[in-house]
């Protein structure tokens, strides 16, 4: 596909998603209390989009992932939170 064709197919949908992200951050900042590691990881992941590097979806996923390699001693929950608490 040409870039024009990709834009014709996907621009409006992704424009809406972009505004949703802006509104989400506004909502967080309007709310009271402290953020947690998820928002820190979210902001780090957002930064991946403006680095001008290829494979942006992969980079975002990597930035939200647990990079360690050893199994944990015991699973104390079944749920995943979407971000790794150790994100610097």
């Amino acid at each position: 596909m040409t870039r024009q064709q990709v834009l014709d197919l996907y621009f409006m949908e992704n424009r809406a998603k972009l505004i949703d992200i802006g509104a989400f951050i506004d909502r967080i900042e309007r709310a009271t209390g402290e953020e947690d590691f998820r928002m820190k990881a979210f902001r780090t992941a957002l930064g991946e989009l403006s680095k001008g590097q290829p494979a942006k979806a992969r980079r975002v996923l990597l930035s939200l992932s647990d990079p360690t390699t050893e199994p944990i001693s015991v699973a104390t929950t079944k749920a995943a939170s979407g971000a790794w608490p150790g994100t610097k």
Partner: protein
Amino acid sequence: MVSRVTDDYLDMAAAGCQAVCEPAFWAGFDRSSVDGFFDYFRQLTEHEPKRAAKFGLLHFTWLCINPKESEDVKLAEDVLSIIPKFLDKPNVLGIGEIGLNKNSRNELKVLEMHVDMAAKYNQLILVHTPHLEDKLKGTRLIIEVLKNDSRIRPERCIIDHVEEHTVEMVLNAGFWAGMTLYPESKCTAARAVDIVETYGQQRLWMNSACDWGVSVPLAVPYAALEMRKRGHTAEAVDKLVYQNPITFLSQSPKFKI
């Protein structure tokens, strides 16, 4: 599809689906004993095929204790002990969906027990990779377990729920890779087609998540539509959504379509 209403079978049949492949998975709560699994395996091998057949759909299944219940190794051993009783059922394709959830030591141990059973009984393997932040690490650990067992042939294993950061390592290791289509987590149709355009169609397929969460049983037909919107040929669509699954699943003599 034990977690879905009958209307979903109707919709799938109307959309042109021919078969359902249902892995054993978590019930949304922990089962209290092996007896719960015995009944669940009966449901998967006796009841669901009949429910699907009412709409002309073939029903195939995979058996295991899901990684979400694998922290309890004793329960897992009990469940593994009853699985051989069901392996000869006509709709059982193999062991699955096994894998990891939180990447714990016990989950890893239970994964190795399942892999051993698959090797002993010459079964195909369907692997679940962990969710979200746990997927990268879990996929690496799973590949390590499978590669460390010399009896396991990668072409007889599909590692499911790949995304942009895990698909390459799965394909490079010789396994099949599944892209599970989900509205929020895992992979959207547009991203799945991006992955196909980046990595090609070799040993890659798509599946619709049909579980307790918000999911879309017609996700694969919608992804086929996404491919057509981008100008993929009818042959390319057919290979990804139909021929590739048949190629992999036909390694089980029970899979006939």
